[in-house]
């Protein structure tokens, strides 16, 4: 068993809490409790998951799993008999939460208002569900506590009294939020009611939790507050600075709501901490942030759960107490890390299937982390509901109403059956986004293809296009983009038929026109970037940037393509923009550094590279560039250290070895140190080989011929002669086929071009530098061409291909790409076969630029023979 660092743990959830709002308040001394807490522990940003929807996120936090595993896939779910909808329930959770694991380990937990936790689970301890504090009835009417709100029932009477009704709120409670309250017409101001409601609900949760914290025995306690999120949704648009279009009167009425919400939360925190013993480790955490500055959306894109568009990707986390370092910052936390961190603090094993990791960087001593294969497979009592538990539908009604009022879901309306179908598809879409972000692209495609087919919903198509792109299914991506463009034309045509009044009604609150083309252009930009067309990609991204000037991913990609095109000032501008959105983005710091370096702005470049490594220390390229910058600044000793560090992380980084030879020999007069690197280069790095690769029948022979005619030295023995399948020759070199067992022929390839099929690339030794031109072609075309070559034309006609070949090739390609990405001595250029046929000149320009050696361009273009493009899909 691992060492137990914490005896007791209290987790306080602050939905949507964001450092961007907190830090200025701390600097002004307005959140003294949190400020003290931070100085006594660690703090940092925490990355949310996509989509940033709270029930999914808080369940990921409590389980360590994403939505496809934990099963909470949105705000609402159909009733078991499909007769209606209800807010998501604890019975829909498919995995064990931290409190279930602790129950199994004989520990006692109090859980208050976690989302979703209704009906309360029969754990060892007390559970107060997330329906506890909700009331939509006037005071005086029966405010019952529905079954399932509290476990055990013996706690119902005492906790019932801790609930605060919104109508109990007085001017004394409301004035700090709305100083002009007395002049406002409260009957007309719906927001006043909302603010009172949020204050009362927070007070209910706080009263229940402070009571349980003090009056019960516990090992673990988790309290969830949604007040900050709800204050922000109600009034962030009025938060200073005043934005254009916000009238003075409304601004003055509500400008203090958000700040007062944070201050209220800080006051409640003071009480909670004052009640604690010194042996409790405390974690304060949010599930996502909330845009509070120029990034506040002016309009919502029309979609269900649209208020989530105000959420930002980084929340906050602070930890304090036994087992935790003091006064330090932590980096790289994810909401998936909470449960593994709690388990590690208790010295309990982490499930190997969990998708998060313990935040050991926060621990004040090094501990070994135990694991078990899967907590889900451990037998025993976990304090969970029996699988046949039926919830009383009445219990959910008030909570449903609240979700509708918050704008997270639409009222069911009359067509319940259609609404249920919509919700089911929407839930699948959320899961697809969740797994897409995790890199499980094929799983996302499997979910998205049928729901797009069924609904033709644009958003589903957009994500599907993105997924195709990620798996290099360029042709499918292109076809889908065209389909979405057609739909856009249809929508415009339909809108033209509407009267001005009807159109205004339809567009109220939404910038409909940015929804569709925005994303299509973005995916098109990514497609062009993948196909090595930076100029075309830039054009697409710029179109998106005009409409979505604050998009992080767009700015990041503009930066990337600007670097590819060596437009340093454009790259600089874009990366600065990214950093205004996410100051911790190490890629942007590195990219900005490269842009500065290439403009000879050395001090600025150094600052950016250092910051990149501060956020992501294991970043060999950034250390290399630190070395390059320092060398240019004549700080040779420090430069040598940086290059040595880069090499320690990535031993085959030839460029760093070459720099070190120069520095040790010519600048520091330490020739003996240079010898090591000279020997390395001599022994390990023998020279450069250009490789044309790809799956068989993906256009590799054509590329070999192009290079041959271009004047590049190709290595071929012409043993395999031309035939009808390759009338212009195979350009093969027989010994290549034995690469797995015999590498003795490689010196012959030095300085030349050789054809090697993709599957053999990982057998290349690391003592050469490789430039790989990787041919890509639609998989169906590759298979078709291979079948014909094998004499199986009958199969092609009947479109019968060997089962599983497609998947097997896809998997092999992913493996090869991962290998390429991990090799410091490999550079790769992707070339799409169909693009060579369609735009030969552009592709050949790219190839010549990649090889950094002039070729006979006109001769190369002449090789491309459109007649040979026979086996299209």
């Amino acid at each position: 068993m691992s060492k137990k660092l914490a005896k007791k743990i209290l987790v306080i959830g602050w939905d949507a809490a964001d450092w961007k709002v907190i830090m200025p308040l701390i600097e002004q001394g307005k959140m003294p409790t949190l400020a003290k807490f931070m100085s006594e522990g660690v703090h940092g940003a925490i990355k949310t998951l996509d989509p940033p929807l709270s029930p999914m996120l808080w369940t990921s936090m409590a389980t360590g799993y994403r939505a496809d595993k934990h099963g909470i896939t949105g705000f609402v779910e159909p009733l078991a008999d499909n007769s209606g909808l209800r807010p998501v329930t604890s019975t829909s959770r498919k995995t064990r939460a931290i409190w279930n694991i602790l129950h199994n380990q004989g520990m006692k937990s109090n859980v208050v208002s976690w989302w979703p936790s209704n009906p309360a689970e029969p754990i060892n301890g007390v559970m107060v569900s997330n329906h506890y504090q909700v009331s939509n009835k006037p005071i005086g009417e029966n405010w019952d506590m529905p079954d399932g709100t509290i476990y055990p029932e013996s706690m119902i009477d005492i906790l019932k009294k801790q609930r605060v009704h919104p109508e109990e709120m007085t001017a004394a409670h409301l004035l700090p939020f709305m100083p002009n309250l007395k002049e406002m017409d409260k009957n007309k101001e719906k927001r006043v009611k909302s603010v009172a409601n949020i204050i009362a609900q927070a007070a209910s949760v706080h009263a229940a939790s402070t009571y349980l914290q003090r009056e019960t025995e516990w090992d673990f306690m988790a309290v969830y507050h949604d007040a900050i999120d709800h204050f922000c949704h109600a009034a962030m648009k009025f938060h200073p600075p005043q934005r254009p279009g916000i009238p003075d009167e409304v601004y003055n009425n509500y400008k203090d709501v958000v700040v007062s919400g944070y201050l209220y939360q800080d006051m409640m925190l003071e009480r909670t901490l004052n009640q604690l013993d010194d042996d409790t480790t405390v974690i304060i955490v949010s599930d996502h942030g909330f845009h509070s500055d120029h990034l506040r959306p002016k309009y919502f894109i029309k979609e269900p759960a649209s208020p989530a568009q105000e959420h930002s990707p980084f929340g906050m986390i602070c930890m304090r107490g036994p087992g935790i370092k003091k006064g330090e910052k932590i980096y790289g936390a994810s909401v998936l890390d909470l449960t593994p961190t709690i388990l590690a603090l208790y010295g309990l094993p982490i499930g190997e299937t969990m998708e998060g990791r313990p935040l050991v960087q926060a621990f004040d001593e090094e501990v070994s982390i135990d694991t078990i294969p899967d907590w889900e497979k451990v037998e025993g009592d976990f304090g969970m509901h029996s699988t046949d538990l039926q919830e009383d539908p009445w219990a959910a009604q008030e909570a449903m109403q609240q979700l509708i009022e918050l704008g997270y879901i639409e009222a069911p309306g009359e067509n319940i059956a259609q609404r249920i179908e919509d919700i089911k598809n929407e839930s699948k879409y959320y899961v697809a986004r969740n797994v897409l972000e995790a890199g499980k692209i094929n799983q996302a495609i499997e979910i998205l293809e049928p729901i797009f087919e069924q609904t033709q919903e644009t958003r589903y198509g957009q994500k599907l296009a993105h997924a195709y792109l990620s798996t290099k299914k360029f042709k499918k991506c292109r076809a889908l983009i065209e389909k979405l463009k057609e739909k856009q034309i249809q929508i415009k045509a339909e809108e033209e038929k509407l009267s001005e009044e009807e159109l205004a009604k339809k567009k109220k609150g939404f910038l409909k026109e940015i929804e569709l083309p925005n994303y299509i252009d973005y995916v098109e930009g990514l497609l062009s970037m993948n196909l090595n067309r930076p100029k075309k990609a830039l054009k697409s991204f710029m179109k998106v940037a005009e409409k979505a000037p604050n998009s992080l991913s767009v700015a990041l990609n503009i930066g990337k393509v600007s670097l590819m095109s060596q437009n340093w000032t454009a790259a600089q501008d874009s990366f600065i923009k990214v950093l205004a959105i996410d100051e911790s983005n190490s890629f942007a710091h590195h990219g900005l550094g490269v842009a500065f370096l290439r403009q000879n702005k050395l001090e600025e470049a150094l600052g950016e590279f250092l910051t990149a490594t501060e956020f992501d220390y294991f970043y060999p390229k950034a250390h290399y560039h630190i070395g390059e910058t320092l060398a240019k600044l004549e700080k040779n000793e420090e430069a040598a250290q940086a290059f040595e560090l880069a090499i320690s992380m990535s031993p085959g980084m030839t460029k760093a070895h070459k720099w070190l030879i120069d520095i040790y020999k010519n600048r520091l007069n330490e020739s003996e140190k240079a010898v090591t690197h000279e020997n390395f280069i001599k022994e390990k790095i023998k020279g450069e080989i250009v490789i044309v690769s790809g799956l068989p029948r993906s256009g590799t022979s054509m590329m070999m011929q192009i290079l041959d005619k271009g004047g590049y030295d190709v290595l071929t023995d012409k043993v395999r002669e031309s035939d009808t399948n390759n009338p212009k020759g195979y350009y093969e070199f027989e010994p290549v086929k034995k690469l797995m067992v015999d590498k003795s022929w490689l010196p012959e390839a030095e300085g030349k071009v050789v054809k090697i099929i993709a599957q053999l690339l990982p057998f290349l030794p690391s003592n050469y530098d490789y430039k790989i031109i990787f041919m890509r072609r639609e998989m169906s075309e590759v298979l078709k061409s291979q079948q014909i070559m094998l004499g199986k034309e009958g199969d092609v006609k009947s479109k019968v291909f060997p089962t599983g070949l497609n998947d097997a090739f896809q998997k092999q390609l992913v493996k090869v790409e991962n290998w390429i990405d991990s090799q410091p001595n490999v550079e790769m250029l992707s070339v799409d076969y169909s693009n060579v046929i369609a735009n030969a000149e552009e592709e050949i320009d790219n190839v010549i630029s990649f090889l950094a050696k002039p070729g006979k361009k006109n001769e190369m273009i002449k090789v491309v023979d459109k007649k040979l493009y026979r086996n299209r899909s």
Partner: protein
Amino acid sequence: MKKQKQTGVKEYKIPVLGSLGLLALGDVGLKMWREKRDAEEAKEKKESENSNSKGDE
């Protein structure tokens, strides 16, 4: 395993209308405020009843 300590409860003057500070004190603050508020309401009710009964005399 032991119960949590109860510290940090300072002397407060309880306003009838309550305050955020009292809500922030959790169950204890809520109880104190409701007692004060209810007592005040009872007192007002009694005074009102008394004045009504005097008016009847």
